[in-house]
């Protein structure tokens, strides 16, 4: 759709708590808050507040089936909020639940400090102890690995055989983790404003992608899997995933024309479009078809900490740290 029409069609929300995470269930944008509540923002402009935690929600994920959200709280609880409104306690403990992630194949994983819990949805979890506190969790799209960003590298755990692990080593503190669409590469963001990549089958093949002015904590792959989009610079930086070694030994491409440092990026499913959230609060839709930018939300000074698409690619959503959010129906991709 035309970005000018799009900007006018964005539904804006303003909540009375910081936004900490967001996820879609169906076409509903769920926004997690620093006050422990989730707000469900619907396409009719309504929003519904559901209080879940006594404290902040630190992380949130929606499951593959699209019928539940998992919320991780600093009250030591992991909760499941069903699309039907049912709330259940999945984990109760003393330590903060720092991270939560869901796989495409019905797994859910969460972490409390160094302890990782991994379960099939609805089943009892197994516990895995990481070498240091876990900063981020993510499953590979092919479901082969659960990845944990830790100090000194990435810990990979096989969801079906949790005793099978692999440690991808690189000195320093790793703060975000993701996998290429084909599941062959693992990527982490580091405290030192860089990304690190390993070829999982042959981890001695690895590389560092540096030179970012800010931490590239957000990254994603284009729908066709042929390039990785990264935040952390005042241009959109992409890395090629076309050769057998991915971006290792390759150069990045940059797309100028944004509005300041990119804070969050997401590729639209079945499309060549990219949603970009900026550190200064603006939100842009970038189209690889003609490399054009269209702005769908203006900068308001607060960082856009996440941008998301609904699984069908129809709905776009974003949240800013200050508790504002936006939802846009873009039509079929």
């Amino acid at each position, binding site marked *: 759709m035309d970005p000018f029409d799009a900007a006018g069609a964005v539904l804006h929300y303003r909540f009375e708590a910081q936004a900490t995470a967001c996820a879609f269930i169906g076409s509903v944008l769920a926004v997690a808050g620093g006050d422990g509540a989730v707000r469900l923002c619907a396409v009719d402009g309504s929003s519904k507040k559901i209080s879940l935690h006594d404290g*902040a929600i630190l992380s949130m994920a929606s499951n593959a089936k699209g019928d539940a959200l998992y919320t991780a709280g600093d009250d030591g609880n992991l909760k499941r909020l069903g699309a039907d409104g049912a709330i259940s306690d999945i984990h109760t403990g003393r330590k903060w639940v720092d991270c939560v992630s869901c796989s495409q194949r019905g797994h859910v994983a969460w972490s409390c400090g160094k302890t990782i819990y991994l379960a099939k949805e609805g089943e009892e979890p197994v516990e895995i102890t990481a070498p240091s*506190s876990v900063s981020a969790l993510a499953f590979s799209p092919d479901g082969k690995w659960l990845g944990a960003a830790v100090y000194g590298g990435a810990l990979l755990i096989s969801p079906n055989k949790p005793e099978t692990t692999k440690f991808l080593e690189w000195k*320093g503190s790793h703060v975000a983790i993701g996998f290429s669409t084909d599941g062959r590469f693992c990527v982490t963001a580091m405290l030192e404003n860089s990304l690190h990549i390993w070829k999982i089958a042959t981890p001695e093949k690895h590389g560092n992608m540096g030179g970012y002015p800010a931490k590239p904590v957000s990254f994603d792959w284009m729908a066709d899997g042929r390039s990785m989009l990264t935040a952390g610079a005042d241009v959109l930086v992409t890395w090629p995933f076309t050769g057998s070694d991915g971006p290792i030994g390759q150069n990045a491409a940059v797309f100028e024309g944004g509005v300041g440092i990119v804070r969050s990026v997401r590729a639209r499913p079945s499309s060549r479009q990219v949603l970009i959230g900026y550190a200064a609060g603006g939100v842009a839709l970038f189209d690889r078809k003609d490399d054009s930018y269209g702005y769908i939300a203006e900068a308001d000074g607060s960082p856009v900490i996440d941008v998301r698409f609904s699984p069908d690619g129809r709905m776009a959503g974003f949240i800013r740290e200050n508790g504002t959010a936006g939802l846009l129906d873009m039509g079929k991709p």
Partner: protein
Amino acid sequence: MTISNEKTPITVLTGYLGAGKTTLLNRILTENHGKKYAVIVNEFGEIGIDNDLVVDADEEIFEMNNGCICCTVRGDLIRILAGLMKRTRDFDGILVETTGLADPGPVAQTFFVDEDIAAKTKLDAIITVVDAKHLFLEIDRAPEAQEQIAFADIVVLNKIDTVSDDDLRTVEARIRRINPTCRIERAERCNVPIDHLLGQNAFALDRILDDDADFLQKDFDDHDGHDHEHCDHDHGKCDHDHADHDHGHLDASRHDDHVSSFSFMTRDKIDPEKFFPWIQMIGQEFGIDMLRMKGILDIKDDNRRYVAQAVHMMLEGDFQREWREGEDRYSRIVFIGRNLPRDIIEDGFMKTRVTA
């Protein structure tokens, strides 16, 4: 609701087990000052903390810069502070208690390194609690205690009722030799007024060496009598060889000290083209042993005071307020570290002066 852009102040409490750190923590929390604090405690804490918001930390030391042993941060602190910053801000500040033997370096460096932490929080002060008697007896055998004093903005000299006045003066002189820029607060049962501890802004550049005028008076004139003399000339005009005599540049180093300090001053202008590469080089070369550095510089062709500080290799600096009309303009730089080569550093610093 307003989401404040004001940075949340962080106060770090260090000190040996038994020195009174937890007593001080509980006093801060229970005293009626109308402020609420989140508390990050270490897992080996002495006794319970009575507070709504207590977070347990396991001191995780992370090396940065591809494994440099001095460029370390507290990984757990990054995670916990980031988490606390997500909450609806139901507290005014954060207190961080470290374990007895903890090195405060990584804690301080966390605020230099992590831009997200630095955007939302500020290190207010490092407070080191020491037991007067224990310090008097043990300091020579306790490098960790010396380092905790070296990093301190405020040393709470606790349990002064357990030592004689003479011993107390000896201990204070010893603390001064390690760290000439800290403030010493004498206490019996940690009974220091809270407003002497919180809201210090000790790491704000515009507060660096703020008590300097005071310092000049007190320490140049009223010298505590150890075995070197002050020369009464301005070093800028000093024409003798500095390497082979021991005149007093507020030199507090002694060979038996693990951690010591020295400072240099000059009324000559500093040449920025010489100073900045030099201080970078010092950071690279001696960063591992340089615990803290603080400096105020009178840079040539600039009417503002340049203020710099460092924790190990991590340097920061900026121009601050203008020199006042009639103000005594000088440059002064203080180094606190482990066996730093004073002669080399002095020689290097003096060479950054503008040569006519």
